[in-house]
C-alpha cells in the first residue's frame, strides 16, 4: 500500500511539475493567467517529490565533455544581457551610479594618498575602503576612470559570478549541478535586477562569499581568511552573513582551525576597521537594534532598497519548487554543510525580516539557484538516466521550461530597462560642470542628486543627502510646499555662493518649480532638464 501511494505521488509529481511550469510559462508570456496562488502551488509541488527523495541513492556521475564551452556560453550570455541596456544610452543604470563615481573620483583626486581623514561622514558610513582602493590601483596602473568601471567592470563582474556559482555547486554536488546552477544564475531575474540597481559592492561581496564557502568546504583556511577579509573591506552585510555561517559551522563540525582563519581575517582587516571603528560598531549595534525592534513590534524597517520577498517568489516561481526539493534532499541526507547553513541563515534573515532583509534576497537567490540545480539534478536528471522512455523526454522538457520561464522576464527586463535619467538630462549636468563657478552649489531633488553629485563636480544640496545639506526634514518639506519668495530666499541664503537649481523633469522627481518662476531666479536651461541660477542677496 505504502509503495503504491509512493508510486502515485511520484507519477503525479512529474505531471504536476509539467503543468505548473506550463502555467508559469503562459503567465510569463502574458498569454494566460489563472486566478490562483502560483506561490502556493510552488510550495506544494515538492511534497509530491518526497517519495523519490526518500528512495534516492546518488550514483557516480559521468564526467561531462566540453564543460568549459557551455560555461563560456553562459558567461557570454550573462555579459550580453548586462551590456544590452547600454546599446542605446551612455547613462549608467541604478540610483547609486553618481555616488560611486563621486567616491572613485574623490579617492583618485587625492592620490597618491588615501583620503581617509578628509572623507565626509556619509562616505565613510556608506563605502568601505576595498572598492575605492581597488579603483585607485586600476586607475594608477591601467588608467581606468570611474565611468569605465561602472560601464565595463561592473557588468563583467556580474557575468563572472557564473564561475563561482559553478565552482561552488560542483564542489558540493558534482559537475552537472554546477552547470545547471550557472545557467539558472545567468537567467535569474533577481541577479539581473541587482545589476540594474548597480549594487557594485554586493556583486563583489557575492564573489567573495561563494569563494569563502568554497575555501571552507575545501579546508583551505588561509584562503578562507583572505576571502572573509575581502568581504570585510568590500561589503559588510555579506561579511556579517559569513560570520553567521561560521558560528553554527564551528559548533556542528567542531573544526577549530576555522578560528585561526577568523583570527587571520581580523588581523587582515584591522587597519581598515580600526580607522572606522566608531562607524562599524555603531552600524553593528544598529543592525541588532533593528532586528530586535522588528521582532518585538512586528514591523519591517531597514529592509534596504530592493524588491521584497513577495516579488521575489513571483520572479523565481519556475525554480522555487526545485530549490525546496534541493533543501529537502539535504535535510533527508542530514547534510549540514556550509551551503545549507548559508541557505538557512539567509532565509531566516529574509523571512523574519531581521535586518537589511530585502537586500539579503540577492544572496538568498544565489543559494536558491544552487539548491534548485541540486533539486533538478536529483529529481529529473538521475531519473532521465535511469529511464530511456517518455520519462527521459519529460525531464529534459521540464528543465528547458524552467530555464525559459526564468529567462523570459529577465530578457524582457534587459530589453526594456532604462536609466533613471536620460542622456540629455545627463548632458545638462555635464554642461553645469563646464559652465558654472567652481565654488557654486547645485540644488537638486533626492531623485536627481546622485547624478548631479557624480557629474557636476560641484557641491550638491539635496534633502537628507551629502554633507553640504544644512536643513532638516521639516525645513525641506516647508521649502517644497511654499510659494512665498521670502521663505524660499531665506532657505537658500543659508548657503554662501551662487546656487544653481537642477530639475530633470522625471515624474518621480519633485522640487516645486513654480517658486522659482520670478525675477530672483534666472532660468538658464529649459530642455529635458531645467536649470535656474540664483545669486543670494543680503535679505
Amino acid at each position, binding site marked *: 500500500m505504502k509503495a503504491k501511494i509512493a508510486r502515485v505521488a511520484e507519477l503525479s509529481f512529474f505531471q504536476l511539475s509539467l503543468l505548473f511550469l506550463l502555467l508559469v510559462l503562459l503567465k510569463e508570456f502574458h498569454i494566460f493567467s489563472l486566478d490562483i496562488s502560483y506561490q502556493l502551488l510552488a510550495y506544494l509541488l515538492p511534497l509530491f517529490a518526497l517519495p523519490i527523495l526518500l528512495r534516492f541513492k546518488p550514483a557516480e556521475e559521468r564526467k561531462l565533455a566540453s564543460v568549459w564551452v557551455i560555461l563560456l556560453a553562459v558567461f557570454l550570455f550573462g555579459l550580453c544581457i548586462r551590456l544590452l541596456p547600454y546599446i542605446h544610452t551612455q547613462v549608467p543604470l541604478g540610483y547609486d551610479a553618481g555616488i560611486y563615481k563621486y567616491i572613485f573620483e574623490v579617492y583618485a583626486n587625492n592620490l597618491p594618498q588615501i583620503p581617509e581623514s578628509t572623507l565626509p561622514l556619509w562616505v565613510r558610513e556608506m563605502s568601505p575602503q576595498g572598492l575605492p582602493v581597488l579603483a585607485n*590601483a586600476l586607475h*594608477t596602473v591601467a588608467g581606468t576612470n570611474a565611468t569605465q568601471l561602472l560601464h565595463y567592470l561592473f557588468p563583467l563582474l556580474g557575468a563572472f559570478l557564473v564561475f563561482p556559482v559553478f565552482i561552488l555547486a560542483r564542489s558540493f554536488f558534482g559537475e552537472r549541478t554546477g552547470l545547471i546552477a550557472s545557467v539558472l544564475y545567468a537567467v535569474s531575474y533577481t541577479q539581473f535586477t541587482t545589476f540594474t540597481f548597480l549594487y557594485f559592492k554586493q556583486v563583489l561581496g557575492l564573489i567573495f562569499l561563494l*569563494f569563502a564557502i568554497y575555501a571552507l568546504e575545501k579546508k*583551505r583556511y588561509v*584562503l578562507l581568511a583572505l576571502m572573509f577579509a575581502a568581504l570585510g573591506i568590500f561589503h559588510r552585510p555579506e561579511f556579517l552573513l559569513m560570520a553567521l555561517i561560521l558560528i553554527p559551522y564551528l559548533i556542528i563540525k567542531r573544526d577549530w582551525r576555522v578560528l585561526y582563519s577568523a583570527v587571520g581575517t581580523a588581523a587582515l582587516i584591522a587597519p581598515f576597521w580600526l580607522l572606522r571603528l566608531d562607524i562599524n560598531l555603531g552600524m553593528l549595534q544598529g543592525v541588532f537594534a533593528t532586528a530586535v525592534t522588528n521582532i518585538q513590534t512586528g514591523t519591517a524597517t531597514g529592509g534596504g532598497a530592493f524588491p521584497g520577498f513577495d516579488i521575489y517568489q513571483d520572479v523565481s516561481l519556475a525554480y522555487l519548487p526545485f530549490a525546496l526539493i534541493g533543501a529537502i534532499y539535504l535535510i533527508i541526507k542530514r547534510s549540514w554543510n556550509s551551503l545549507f547553513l548559508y541557505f538557512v541563515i539567509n532565509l531566516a534573515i529574509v523571512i523574519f525580516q531581521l535586518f537589511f532583509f530585502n537586500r539579503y534576497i540577492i544572496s538568498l537567490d544565489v543559494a536558491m539557484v544552487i539548491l534548485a540545480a541540486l533539486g533538478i539534478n536529483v529529481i529529473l536528471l538521475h531519473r532521465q538516466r535511469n529511464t530511456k522512455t517518455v520519462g527521459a523526454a519529460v525531464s529534459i522538457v521540464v528543465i528547458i521550461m524552467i530555464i525559459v520561464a526564468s529567462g523570459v522576464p529577465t530578457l524582457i527586463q534587459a530589453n526594456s530597462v532604462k536609466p533613471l535619467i536620460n542622456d540629455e538630462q545627463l548632458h545638462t549636468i555635464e554642461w553645469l560642470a563646464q559652465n558654472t563657478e567652481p565654488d557654486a552649489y547645485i540644488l537638486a531633488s533626492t531623485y536627481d542628486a546622485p547624478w548631479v553629485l557624480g557629474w557636476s563636480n560641484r557641491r550638491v544640496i539635496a534633502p537628507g543627502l551629502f554633507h553640504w545639506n544644512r536643513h532638516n526634514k521639516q525645513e525641506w518639506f516647508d521649502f517644497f510646499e511654499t510659494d512665498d519668495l521670502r521663505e524660499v530666499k531665506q532657505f537658500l541664503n543659508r548657503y554662501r555662493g551662487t546656487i544653481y537649481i537642477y530639475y530633470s523633469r522625471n515624474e518621480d522627481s519633485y522640487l516645486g518649480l513654480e517658486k522659482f518662476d520670478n525675477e530672483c531666479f534666472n532660468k538658464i536651461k529649459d530642455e529635458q532638464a531645467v536649470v535656474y541660477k540664483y545669486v543670494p542677496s543680503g535679505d
Partner: protein
Amino acid sequence: MDVLEVLRLFFGGIFILFVPGFAWSYVFFARKNIDWIERVALSFGLSIALVPLTVFWFNWLFQLKITLLNTCLVVCGLIAIPVLYILITRSAWGKYVTSRVKSALRLGRDRQS
C-alpha cells in the same frame, strides 16, 4: 581612446585583476588539485581580494604613496611571494625543511596527546 590606452587598459587590468591571484592559486591548490576553470576563476577572486588589502596595508603601515611605480612594485611583490614559496617548497632543500617542520609538528602533537 587610442591604441596605447587600450593596451594599457587591457594589460594593466590583467596585471591587477588576474596575475597576483593566479600566482597565489598555486599556493592553495597544487597543479593537479583543481582544473583550469577553477584556477582562472579563483585567480580573479584572489586578485580582487589581495590587491586592495596589500595596497592599503602598505599605505597605512609605511605611508607608501599609491603611484604607478609603487603599485606595480607591490603587485610584483604579491606575485613574487607565491613564486618563491613554490620554488622553495619544490627544491630538494625546501622539501627537506618542509618534512622536518612537519615531523616536528607531528612530534609536538603526539607529545601533547
